[in-house]
């Protein structure tokens, strides 16, 4: 026998799939929302995204090269995904050095300290974001008013509230939802009185409202989500359970008392729900492995989000909700097994 043959166990063929392909599909899916952020925040958005991505990749490279001295995996695209998602979760005027701190926490602590891609129990971008939110509350909650490219500024205000934040503050003061919608919210900026109006459905659907870089435009995020579903990078279970439970929970409250609870459509469009439900709760590494587990995970995320939004100390609860549920994933994986073929019913 003059030819040496390769020997290995079956299967002998492999699907045309890789971690890199999955990660790049996520990156492509994030492009529409990226374009929207560039449209509303211009170069600032570009700066935040670029700094975040570069910082994430460099931190991962440095750790692998000099600390772990192991294989380099920066070209698998996962650090880029974390970078973009971190950028999407901060305001567009965040100082560069703070973004870098966020990237160090996200990659260094939340990802590499646990053993790199696949080993992290929590979503790295969210850990970075929450770290920044707690450490730099002022910078992390000053929201630049979106200024569409080529358009004249409509207000003098440079920064303004997010709709969820504004509503929460005003409702606390005792106003009803109807009053706030009709008259707007007055606040003082640089000695001048500014009136903030709650954005319309249309504005919030297309993203013309205050908020983190990437969370604003529902339509752009949904286009990306559709692409990921089509590419089978994500499955329907988590987003459906997450968004569904938020809509149902807030819907019930709204039906009971519409003067103190805004309607579920606003809960859907304001804040980071769509970004979180499609892009972060679905993070493969930190979400459950079975269909039933995913549904439970999504429900948990939804309920915690609503509780924080309505009764918690923060106006927005998506990041916290996902991180809290991330901690439950091992337990969920233990409790919800797939439907076994030929399961023998236990006799009672």
């Amino acid at each position, binding site marked *: 026998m003059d030819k040496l043959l390769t020997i290995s166990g079956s299967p002998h063929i492999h*699907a045309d799939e890789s971690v890199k*392909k999955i990660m790049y599909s996520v990156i492509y899916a994030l492009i529409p929302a990226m374009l929207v952020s560039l449209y509303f925040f211009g170069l600032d958005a570009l700066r935040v995204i670029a700094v975040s991505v570069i910082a994430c990749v460099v931190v991962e490279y440095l750790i692998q090269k000099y600390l772990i001295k192991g294989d380099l995996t920066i070209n698998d695209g996962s650090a880029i995904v974390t970078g973009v998602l971190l950028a999407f979760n901060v305001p567009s005027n965040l100082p560069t050095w703070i973004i870098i701190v966020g990237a160090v926490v996200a990659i260094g602590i939340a990802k590499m300290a646990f053993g790199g891609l*696949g080993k992290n129990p929590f979503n790295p971008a969210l850990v970075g974001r929450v770290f920044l939110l707690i450490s730099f509350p002022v910078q992390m909650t000053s929201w630049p008013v979106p200024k569409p490219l080529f358009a004249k500024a409509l207000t003098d205000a440079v920064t303004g509230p997010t709709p969820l934040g504004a509503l929460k503050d005003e409702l606390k003061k005792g106003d009803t939802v109807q009053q706030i919608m009709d008259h707007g919210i007055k606040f003082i900026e640089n000695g001048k009185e500014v009136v903030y109006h709650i954005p319309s459905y249309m504005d919030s659907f297309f993203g013309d409202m205050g908020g983190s870089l990437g969370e604003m435009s529902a339509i752009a995020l949904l286009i990306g989500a559709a692409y990921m579903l089509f590419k089978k990078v994500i499955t329907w279970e988590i987003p459906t359970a997450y968004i569904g439970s938020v809509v149902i929970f807030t819907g019930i409250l709204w039906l009971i008392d519409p003067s103190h609870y805004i309607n579920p459509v606003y809960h859907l469009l304001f804040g980071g729900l769509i970004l979180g439900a499609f892009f972060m709760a679905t993070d493969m590494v930190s979400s459950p492995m079975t269909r039933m587990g995913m549904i439970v995970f999504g429900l948990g995320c939804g309920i915690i989000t609503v509780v924080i939004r309505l009764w918690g100390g923060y106006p927005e609860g998506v990041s916290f909700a996902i991180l809290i549920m991330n901690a439950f994933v091992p337990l969920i994986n233990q409790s919800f097994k797939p439907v*076994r073929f030929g399961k023998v019913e236990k006799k009672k």
Partner: protein
Amino acid sequence: MKTFKLGGVHPPENKFSSGAAIEKLPLPKRAFIPVTQHLGAPAALVVNRGDEVKTGQLIAKSSGFISANIHSPVTGKVFKVDNVMDVSGYKRKALIIDVAEDDWEEGIDTSDDIVREITLTKEQIIERMAEMGIVGLGGATFPTHVKMMVPKGKTAEYLIINGVECEPYLTSDHRLMLEKGEEILIGATILMKALGVEKAMVGIENNKPDAIEHLSKLAKEFKGITVHALKVKYPQGGEKQLIKALTGREVPSGKLPIETGCVVDNVGTAYAVYEAVQKNKPLIERVVTVTGHAAKQPSNFLARVGTPIAQLIEHAGGMPEDLGKVIGGGPMMGKALMNTEVPVVKGTSGILLMQKEESKRVAVKNCIRCSRCVGVCPMGLEPFLLAQLVEHQLWERTENEKVMDCIECGSCQYTCPSGRPLLDYIRLGKFKVGQIIRSRGKK
């Protein structure tokens, strides 16, 4: 369209040889006939070195309840009895015969005339199957006559004829259905009689519309046989998946298909049964597909057992320069062969020739917990978890997570984006847990 519900994948079909008619392969100069060609105990030799044997003559006798007779596929003189490497990669006892002019044992009908009338009784049929060394030709090579003996307390309701051929590349069953359709249906009728069932279903995936049409047309003349088109999905040819697809019944974990009232036989087996019962011909030849990206001329051969695989490759356009891997069987469940001197045996459904480049496995990365392996597992297992448990040698938990339910279809490893060798680990787990279960039984 019918299919099984849980999991499954759809690898590229690559059925290059589906248009190639079955060709009779010339006899080898020397035939190598292992005494283990079936599941169960090796057959006991009844001939010795120097003996003259005729084609179709019994050369090794079934040696246990689960075992099968082996007949000489050629005429000639026994050169010696030696250990020869077989498809499994192990050296096993085999008879080596120097081949002379083909001379068949008396009483075997080698003509192509179709015999429709079934004269044997149920018991005689089962006896004949055992005598002629019929085993399942789908790959598992379980002795067919044993399968026909329905255990006490169970009743068979359906015979299921497996024409799914869900393995990519392979076309031997497809060609057989097109060229020997009537014989297959007669074989099915014989099997029905042996089992005492009134109904038989033939399951064929709808990537073989010509076979579905052909058999559906023929089946009109056969009582109780229906042909069913199935949606293409791997591993539909798995016994449990096929029963689920056709009847909606699930074989309980750890139990045999008869629990659902079904007995599954491959189309190749039905054809072999026809030949054994109607033509008195033992199982000494079978259809073998030679195919793959490296194959120069993808073909289907009717080859005698014992023919070295190199000879099949030679007739399929010759040995490719860029040969990386030779697989006995299909790409999903087949075995990589150590060399091309390995002989064709009863269970050889195909020879897949792979190029050097496609023979390499992809680099292994961390599990990213994407849960695709869970989604594609047709048995509802968690391959990532099983692999992890085996890696840490946690045998008890491996058993509790139902490792023994795994049918080794390879869908998990096929689909894993991190290229993890999931099935390698699971196979090891099955082996270890199997040992533990057996030792428990002894206590």
